């Protein structure tokens, strides 16, 4: 059905709607629209305890289970995004973007499936409704061959996005796959592989790097689940992880786990470039306070202590191998310079370290 909420035509993928679903969409629209109106006067507000609030408009919704809240939200937001892109150009104002955060990868998949369903419904109706409408000149320049649409991606870790046949996913830890990926994609490995063909490299990474250089590749319009990204990557020869990571910046809808936005170890490379025009949704947020404080907690137990000990020993061996040579060469340089009478400023601590000549 197509219903009017405020000034926005909303496409809902069913013929009938429950009252609370309609109420929810109206409320969501109202909240987003309020934000637009007061965009010009953003002031920081303080609570009684003197805490400064951020400038984001926030809203809290308790929507019962089994009421299809995902369908409602995605219908409203997709309709909003389509409407924006049809009625304004990118130049006249920044377009909105949806960043949807879920608790787990399984949840994320569910959201992507729902998004696909809603998107296909809207696309059918919007294109039909706008047949013969005038296309804005600026839009044709930007996308000369593509018709209007939205790009939606689901992003996760390398463990879930890697398609290289030699990568073994034998543990739930992300860092295991990260290390394997690094062994075949690190810049020095790729460099060495040019002269040594026995070294394994990743053709998908190379494929991605190649298209990055041309700087014009963007994922096509549509909703891309992890499964879709795997298939596209295999067919066209690019790495789903790096391509999707880049897509997070330009996609209209991004769905990923909380940690990609809140954990700085991950978010600084994934989400830092997101513009402030994003509508961020924390879904299933009943435990968000515990989840967010856990992201900034460090846990050290016996197995970790053993790992640290081993790691430091490995590091020490590697450094010892090279450092002894540095020490000799630096001491030689310094002695030579003093002999020559060059008054160079050398850090004093360097001398105390340099006595261990191996």
């Amino acid at each position, binding site marked *: 059905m197509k219903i009017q909420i405020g000034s926005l035509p909303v496409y809902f993928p069913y013929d009938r709607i429950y009252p609370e679903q309609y109420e929810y969409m109206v409320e969501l629209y109202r909240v987003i629209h309020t934000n637009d109106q007061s965009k010009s006067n953003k002031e920081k507000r303080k609570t009684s305890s003197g805490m400064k609030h*951020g400038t984001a408009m926030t809203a809290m919704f*308790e*929507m019962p289970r089994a009421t299809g809240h995902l369908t409602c939200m995605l219908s409203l937001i997709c309709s909003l995004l389509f409407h924006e892109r049809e009625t304004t150009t990118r130049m006249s104002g920044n377009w909105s973007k949806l960043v949807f955060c879920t608790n787990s990868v399984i949840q994320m998949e569910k959201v992507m499936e729902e998004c696909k369903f809603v998107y296909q419904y809207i696309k059918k109706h919007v294109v039909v409704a706008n047949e013969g409408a005038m296309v804005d000149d600026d839009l044709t320049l930007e996308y000369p061959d593509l018709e209007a649409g939205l790009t939606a991606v689901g992003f996760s870790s390398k463990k879930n996005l890697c398609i290289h046949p030699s990568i073994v996913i034998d543990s739930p830890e992300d860092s295991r796959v990260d290390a394997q990926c690094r062994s075949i994609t690190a810049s020095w490995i790729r460099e060495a592989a040019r002269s040594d063909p026995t070294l394994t490299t990743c053709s998908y990474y190379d494929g991605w790097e190649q298209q990055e250089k041309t700087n014009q590749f963007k994922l096509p319009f549509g909703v891309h689940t992890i499964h879709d990204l795997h298939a596209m990557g295999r067919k066209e020869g690019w790495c789903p992880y790096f391509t999707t990571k880049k897509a997070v910046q330009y996609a209209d809808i991004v769905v990923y786990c909380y940690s990609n936005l*809140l954990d700085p170890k991950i978010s600084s490379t994934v989400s830092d470039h*997101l513009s402030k025009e994003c*509508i*961020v949704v924390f879904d299933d947020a009943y435990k*968000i306070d515990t989840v967010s404080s856990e992201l900034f907690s460090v846990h050290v137990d016996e197995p970790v202590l053993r790992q640290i000990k081993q790691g430091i020993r490995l590091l020490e061996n590697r450094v010892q191998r090279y*450092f002894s040579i540095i020490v000799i060469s630096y001491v030689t340089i310094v002695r030579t310079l003093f002999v020559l009478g060059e008054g160079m400023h050398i850090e004093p*601590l360097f001398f105390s370290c340099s006595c261990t000549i191996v």
Partner: protein
Amino acid sequence: MHNSVKDNEMGTRRLQEEYQRLVSGLSPPVEPSDELPALPIRTIDLLPSYVVPGNIRQPEHFVVLLKRFFGFIHGYMTDPDMKHKGETADNFVELIQREALIEENILKYFTHRLNSLLNALQIRNTYEYRGVRILSDLATMLGSQRQGFYVTVDPYDDRTPTSFDPVLQLTCLDPAFALVPSTQKFKMIVFQSSVLPAMSMYAKLLSINPIASRSFPFTYPRNCLCPVVLSRGSDQVAVSTQRKARLDPSVVRNYGALLVELSKYTPDGIVAFFPSFHYMEEMLARWNDMGLITTIQRFKLVVAETTSPTETALALQNYRRACDSGRGALMFSIARGSVADSVDFDGKYGRAVVMFGIPFSEVDTKLMKAKLDLFERKYNVSAEDYLTFDALRHTSHCITKGLHNKRDYGLAILADRRYNKEDKRRLLPRWVQDQTPENHLNLSTEALMQICRRFLKEIAQPIDMSDVQLLTEQDINLLSKKIHTE
């Protein structure tokens, strides 16, 4: 031989180049393939530039510092005293300065230095260095941000007090901490859930001031959920999991009797949640001694969640098989465990959910005390309010697990007399409260079973879909016209 000499020379040259970079504070951009996990610091807390201080520029000296820091941490954790420790992060850093002789402003560079070194040494298998990474992250966090952070050491697991198993934890006590960069940056943030009780509590803890806090109703011609509160057993003894009452033989027997009755009359799957593993194990043992488990097994397969993920996965698999192929199963689980977090019991897998008691968290630990203290000071939230809120949101999450679409249905049994109290019930989601009439409260086992059995019989009847209040496009248009003219 020639190759290794050449390798060493190359390695040396790379370390020299790295040294130059560290001196100047300039680093060339790292290729995406070589990127390592970034600093565990919020962007707003990052220093404008990371010019590594002189005494950790040399890789050997950095390794020495890592060893010294590790030695300190190890010593702190493995104190032969076997006492629980708790310090604010500020005090802990002072301790590091005193005993490990590492200045606070050196600590903040650890992760940056490590990343630089791992790349200069061209380390491929970063998995081998994950321990060192954790150590460096710990140092970096302690060096950069300490407000609202707390360090604890627990020398043993409470269930095995004689077995030495030390755990050190740096915890962020402040829930708003992680969200601040987002609330300061984005134009709009929506928090949503099917369970979001006491929204004012969330608003305080997350330091936000929402422009809308709405709880939506659940419209359907009949109730899909049957929430009932068990207050006492057939012997009129009140049931509760309060410390002083929980192991009373009458309470144990009454709780067991509830499960036996449910197993007889509920089709397919039943999930029973407990406040803790310890309590669950204790109850299972006692029920077994009383022969109640044997009785239940005549009607349902009995499976239980354990601390091992593989065993739990197997238990879930068997649970589903039993529900698929016949009379169903009874699953014992923990309110705050991984099953409660991530497993959905839709349709026949969740025909009844029982919450034994109120899942309060452990209050006696140093960590919880520090947390409650912070909430009191910074957010004006009393310990009692927070603990009740926290327990009830877990209860709400558990008992609504059985509902997946409007054709789904289930029993939601709150087995504790304390649920009768208004201050507990108002923390249930509004749509659950709407489905809880007065006669569902303060029940004895027989009265409860009567209500449940009637509910199950009625709900299994087909529903006349014309009764369902769905709106069409025309209805909405009329509705919005009405709103406009008003």
